[in-house]
C-alpha cells in the first residue's frame, strides 16, 4: 500500500495507522497516549494531521492509513493547534521548569537531590532526563502557557510497596490502564472519578495491594511522565549504562536490562524492544534486583574471627587464612554447602575444589533441602520441560502454581491460551491472577492423586501439567509428582515444572542424585573440621563444624562464621546458568563487584592455588566454560517407585481452616527475598498467617493482629495478614522455622483471636 506523507510517497503494510506508517518512514509525529504495544486511544490529540478529503484534524494514531491517502503532518495550523493542546495539558502539570530561563544553570548546579515530597518541576522529578513529555515539549516548542495554571493538589500515594503515585503529574493518557488490562490481563487500574479530579487506580478506593496488583511495574515502564515513581530509584537519576542480562530470581532467567549509574545497579527493565516495553517481568525481576544488590548487608571486604572479636583483613590475607584452615583437612572432615543461585562456572570450580583439592564428596544445599523430599521427583519431571508445550497443548492444568508474584511470562502465555479458548484448570490454594480465566479451580492438595489428575485430563489429547513450587510442600507431594511422572513417562501428558531457583538445574547436574542429601546433617556433624558455605545459612545455632568459612555477597548470620569472604553479587560477575527448559542463559556483568569482593570461582581458585595446586589458574569464566564437559547437563535423579503418603483428610467442623505451609523459597544465596527487600515482605511476609479478608473480618482481626492457631495438641501464635489472594477457609504460612510444626501439611486448624 502506498500513501503520501508530507509530499513523500511511502510504503506501508495494510491495516497500519497513519502514525505507524509515518514512523516507519521516518516522519516523527508528536504523540503521548499512543504506545506500540497498546491499542490506540486517541486521548491526547497531539498526533493530529491533515488528510486530504477528510474534514477536520483526525488523530494519526487512530486513523487507518489507506491506499493513495495524502497526509500532512506539519502545517502552520496543525502546529498552532498542537501548541494549544500541549499548553492545556501543561496547565495542569508542574511544568514551570520546562519554561524556566535558568533551567540549564539550575540543572547543572543542582546541589542536593530532593529525595522526598512532591514533584513541583522537572528538577525534582524522578523522570527528569528520560521523560516523553519533556521530549514532546522540546519537539513542539513552547515558551509559555497561556492558560491559567492549575495545581490539582492530590495527595501523593505512598502506601503501596515499590512505587509511589503522584497524580498531580498525570496527563491521563491511559497507557498504564491499557497495559494493565491488555498486556498483563490484570485489570487493577482504571480511570477514577471525573473532571479535574480524575486519577488512575483500582475502583472502590482499594489499595493496589488489595486490588490484586502484581507489582509487575508495567504501568511504570510505559508512563510518559513522572507520575509513577519507583521508590528504589526515584532519586538515582538517569542510568549511565545498560546491560542485557538475565534475572537471578528463578529458573526462567528472564531477559532483563540492568540499569547502572556510577557503577551501581539502580534498576532493571524488561528487555528493550526500542519502545520502553511494558514487558513481562514479575515483581522480583522488575523491582527486587537493585534493592538486593545494594542491600546494607552486602559484604565489601573479608573478615576473620580473632580472639576477642572480628577483624577486617585484606583479601590476600583472607585467602592465606582460608588455606591455613583447610590445610591437612581431607575427606569427610570437609563439607561444602552450595547454592542453586551460583553460576555453572562457580559450581564447576566449587565441585572441583571439594572433590579434587579436599577429596570430599560431602556437598549439599540448605536451599535445596528446604524444598523438601519431593525435590528429586520434581526435578525428574522438570527434565522434560519445554516452554513450547504451553502453546501446543489442548488442556493446561496448573498445580501448586501461584502466579501472583512470580513466573509471570508463563502466566501470560497461559492466560493468552485460556483467552483464546484453551481449557485451563487450576489446582492450588491461592487465587492468583490466572484464576479468573480458569474453567475449574480445585483446592490443593488432591486426594487420590493419580485418579484425580486422570479425571482432570480425561477429555484432553495433549494435556500439559504446569507444576509450581507449591506442589512440593503438601504431605502428598511425592504422590502427586509420581502421578504426573507416570503420565509423562507413558506419553499421556507433558509437564512443565517451574524451578524456584536461578540455577537449580546446574546444581542438580553437579550433584546428581546426591542433591538432596541432607544439608542439615552437615550442619549438625561435629566431626567436620571445616564447613565451607557458599550460601547463607538459615539463622539458628552455629554449625557443629570446628571452623566455618562463609563466602557470599551477604553478611553471615550472627557469629556463625570464622572467616568471611565477600563474593560478587548479582550483576557483578559474568557466568552461565541452566534455565528451567535446560537451555544455557548468559548472565552478564553490569557493574564491578562491591569493595574487594570477587567472583566465587576466583576466590576458590585463589585458595586452591595458595594450597599448592597449579591447576586452578583460570583467566576468566570463559576458560572455565571450555573446561566443563559437555555432559555437564542433567543427570538422572533417583526414581521414586512406591512412595506415597496418605492424602490429607477433609477438615473437621471444629477446625474450619486449612493451613498450608511453605518455606520462603524466593531467596538468593540462602537469604530470603522478603528479608532482603522490604516491599517483597509486604507481598509475601514470613511468619504471618495469610487469610481471606472476609475470614479476617469475621474473626475481628486486622493486619498485624495476633491469632492463635490450634491443631490437635499443637498451637502457635502468628500475626495475620489479610490477603484477597486467599479463598475463604484457606490459610497460608510462609515459614523457614521447622519448629512451627503442625501434624500435617496442609493441616486442619482452628483460629482464635488472642
Amino acid at each position, binding site marked *: 500500500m502506498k500513501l503520501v506523507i508530507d509530499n513523500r510517497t511511502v510504503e506501508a503494510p495494510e491495516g497500519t495507522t497513519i502514525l505507524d506508517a509515518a514512523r516507519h518512514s521516518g516522519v516523527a509525529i508528536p504523540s503521548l497516549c499512543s504506545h506500540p504495544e497498546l491499542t490506540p486511544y486517541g486521548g491526547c490529540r497531539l498526533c493530529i494531521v491533515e488528510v486530504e478529503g477528510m474534514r477536520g484534524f483526525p488523530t494519526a494514531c487512530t486513523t487507518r492509513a489507506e491506499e493513495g491517502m495524502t497526509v500532512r503532518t506539519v502545517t502552520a495550523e496543525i502546529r498552532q493547534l498542537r501548541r494549544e493542546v500541549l499548553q492545556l495539558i501543561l496547565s495542569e502539570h*508542574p*511544568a*514551570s*521548569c520546562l*519554561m*524556566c*530561563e*535558568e533551567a540549564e*544553570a*539550575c540543572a547543572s*548546579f*543542582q*546541589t*542536593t*537531590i*530532593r*529525595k*522526598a*515530597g*512532591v514533584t*513541583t*518541576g522537572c528538577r525534582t522529578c524522578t523522570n527528569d532526563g528520560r521523560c516523553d513529555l519533556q521530549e514532546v515539549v522540546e519537539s513542539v516548542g513552547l515558551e*509559555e*502557557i497561556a492558560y*491559567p*495554571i492549575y*495545581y490539582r*493538589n492530590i495527595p501523593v500515594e*505512598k*502506601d503501596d*510497596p*515499590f512505587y509511589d503515585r503522584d497524580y*498531580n503529574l498525570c496527563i491521563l493518557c491511559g497507557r498504564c490502564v491499557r497495559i494493565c488490562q491488555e498486556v498483563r490481563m490484570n485489570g487493577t487500574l482504571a480511570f477514577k472519578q471525573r473532571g479535574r479530579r480524575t486519577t488512575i487506580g483500582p475502583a472502590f478506593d482499594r489499595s493496589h495491594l488489595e486490588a490484586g496488583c502484581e507489582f509487575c511495574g508495567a504501568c511504570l515502564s510505559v508512563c510518559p511522565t513522572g507520575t509513577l515513581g519507583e*521508590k*528504589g*530509584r*526515584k*532519586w*538515582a537519576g538517569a542510568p549511565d549504562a545498560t546491560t542485557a542480562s538475565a534475572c537471578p530470581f528463578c529458573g526462567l532467567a528472564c531477559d532483563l536490562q540492568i540499569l547502572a549509574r556510577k557503577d551501581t545497579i539502580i534498576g532493571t527493565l524488561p528487555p528493550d524492544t526500542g519502545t520502553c516495553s511494558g514487558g513481562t517481568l514479575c515483581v522480583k525481576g522488575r523491582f527486587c534486583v*537493585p*534493592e538486593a544488590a*545494594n*542491600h*546494607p548487608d552486602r559484604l565489601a571486604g573479608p573478615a576473620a574471627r580473632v580472639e576477642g572479636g572480628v577483624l577486617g583483613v585484606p583479601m590476600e590475607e583472607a585467602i592465606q587464612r582460608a588455606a591455613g584452615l583447610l590445610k591437612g583437612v581431607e575427606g569427610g572432615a570437609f563439607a561444602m554447602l552450595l547454592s542453586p543461585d551460583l553460576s555453572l562456572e562457580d559450581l564447576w570450580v566449587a565441585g572441583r575444589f571439594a572433590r579434587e583439592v579436599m577429596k570430599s564428596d560431602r556437598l549439599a544445599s540448605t536451599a535445596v533441602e528446604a524444598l523438601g523430599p519431593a525435590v528429586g521427583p520434581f526435578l525428574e519431571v522438570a527434565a522434560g520441560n519445554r516452554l513450547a508445550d504451553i502453546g501446543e497443548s489442548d488442556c493446561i492444568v496448573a498445580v501448586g502454581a501461584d502466579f501472583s508474584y512470580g513466573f509471570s511470562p508463563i502466566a501470560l502465555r497461559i492466560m493468552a491460551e485460556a483467552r483464546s479458548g484453551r481449557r485451563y484448570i487450576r489446582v492450588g490454594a491461592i487465587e492468583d491472577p490466572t484464576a479468573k480465566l480458569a474453567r475449574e479451580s480445585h483446592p490443593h492438595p488432591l486426594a487420590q492423586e493419580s485418579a484425580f489428575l486422570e479425571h482432570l485430563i480425561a477429555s484432553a489429547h495433549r494435556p500439559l501439567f504446569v507444576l509450581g513450587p507449591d506442589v512440593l510442600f503438601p504431605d502428598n507431594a511425592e504422590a502427586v509428582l509420581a502421578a504426573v511422572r507416570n503420565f509423562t513417562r507413558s506419553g499421556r501428558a507433558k509437564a512443565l515444572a517451574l524451578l524456584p531457583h536461578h540455577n537449580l538445574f546446574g546444581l542438580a547436574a553437579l550433584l546428581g542424585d546426591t542433591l538432596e542429601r541432607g544439608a542439615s546433617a552437615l550442619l549438625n556433624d561435629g566431626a567436620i573440621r571445616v564447613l565451607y558455605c557458599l550460601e547463607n545459612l538459615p539463622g539458628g545455632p552455629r554449625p557443629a563444624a570446628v571452623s566455618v568459612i562463609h563466602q557470599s555477597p551477604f553478611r553471615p548470620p550472627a557469629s556463625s562464621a570464622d572467616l568471611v569472604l565477600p563474593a560478587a553479587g548479582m550483576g557483578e560477575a559474568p557466568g552461565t546458568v541452566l534455565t528451567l527448559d535446560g537451555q544455557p542463559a548468559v548472565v552478564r556483568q553490569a557493574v564491578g563487584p562491591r569493595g574487594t569482593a570477587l567472583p566465587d570461582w576466583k576466590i576458590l581458585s585463589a585458595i586452591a592455588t595458595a594450597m599448592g595446586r597449579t591447576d586452578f589458574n583460570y583467566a576468566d569464566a570463559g576458560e572455565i566454560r571450555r573446561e566443563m564437559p559437555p555432559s555437564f547437563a542433567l543427570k538422572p535423579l533417583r526414581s521414586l517407585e512406591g512412595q506415597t503418603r496418605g492424602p490429607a483428610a477433609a477438615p473437621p467442623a471444629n477446625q474450619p481452616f486449612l493451613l498450608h505451609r511453605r518455606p520462603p523459597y524466593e531467596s538468593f544465596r540462602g537469604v530470603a527475598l522478603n528479608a532482603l*527487600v*522490604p*516491599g*517483597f*515482605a*509486604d507481598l509475601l511476609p514470613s511468619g504471618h498467617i495469610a487469610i481471606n479478608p472476609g475470614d479476617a473480618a469475621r474473626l475481628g482481626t486486622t493486619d498485624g493482629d495476633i491469632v492463635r492457631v490450634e491443631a490437635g495438641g499443637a498451637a502457635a501464635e502468628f500475626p495475620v495478614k489479610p490477603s484477597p489472594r486467599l479463598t475463604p477457609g484457606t490459610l497460608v504460612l510462609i515459614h523457614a522455622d521447622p519448629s512451627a510444626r503442625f501434624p500435617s501439611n496442609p493441616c486442619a486448624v482452628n483460629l482464635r483471636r488472642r
Partner: protein
Amino acid sequence: MFAIVESQPLVPNLYRMVVEAPPVAAQVKPGQFVIVQAVEFGERIPLSVADWDAEAGTLTLIFMEVGKTTSALAAKKRGDALPTVVGPLGNPTVIEPFGSVVCVAGCYGIGSILPVARALKAAGNRVTVAIEGRSAYLLYGREALRGHCDTLIEITRDGSRGFKGHIGRLPEILREKGVTADRFIVNGCTFLMRRASQVFEPAGVPVIVSLNPIMIDGTGMCGVCRLTYDGKMKFACVDGPDFDGRLVDWEEFLKRRKQYVDEELIPVHHTGHTRCY
C-alpha cells in the same frame, strides 16, 4: 521533649511547625537557627527560626521535605513532640539603619526572611521584599510579609503570579520600581543565593546570604560546616550563618554540600514500604 503546638503543610513540600521551646523563644533573634531531631537517636538537622512568640514560649519553623529527617518531621502531628530543639545558634542577622534594603527569599527562606524584614523595618529602613517560586501555588506568606515591607515583589517561573522569570529579572524590576539598594539579604536554596550574589554584584553593596552547609553540632566543634570565605576558613555555625555572598567560595561550598548524597540515598532506597520518606 518539645511539644508540637501546630503542624501543617503550607504548600507542596513545605511545612510549618510551631514548637514549644521557651528558653530559645526568649532569646532568639532574626537570622538565627536551631538544631532539631525528629526522633531520638535520629540525625540532628539545622533549621532557621521563622518566627517566635517569647510570651507563649514557641518557635515557628518552616522546612522543606527533602530527605529522611525532614520527611519524619513532616509526618509529625500536633500533640507529638521533638526530642531535641537546641538554640538559638549562629549569629543574628546584622540589623542597622542601612537605608534601603532589598530582601530576597525563596523556598523555606520565605519563612526565615520575615523576622529579618520586620526588624529592618523597625530599624527605620526602606524594605523591599522579593519572593520567588516556580509557580503561584508554591508561594506563601505574602500576607504576613506585606505588613513588614514597603514593597512586595513576586516572581514565578511560569508567570502565574507577579513577574515571570527567575532571580535574574530582579535588577530590572527594581529599576522599573525605582528601588536602589544599600544592602541585599538573601535567604533560600543554595542556587538562589549563589545566583543572587552574581546578579547583584554590579550594585557594589553587600549581598548577605544565610548559608546552609551540612552541620552536626552547630557549636563550632565538628568542623563539618567549614567553608572558604574571602580566602579564609570559616565555620558557618559560629562565624555565620550570614556571609557576604560575593566572597564565598561557592564551588567548594557546593562540593561539600553534595558530599554525602550517596549515603543519604541509603535510607530512601531500602524502604520498599514505609511512608516515612
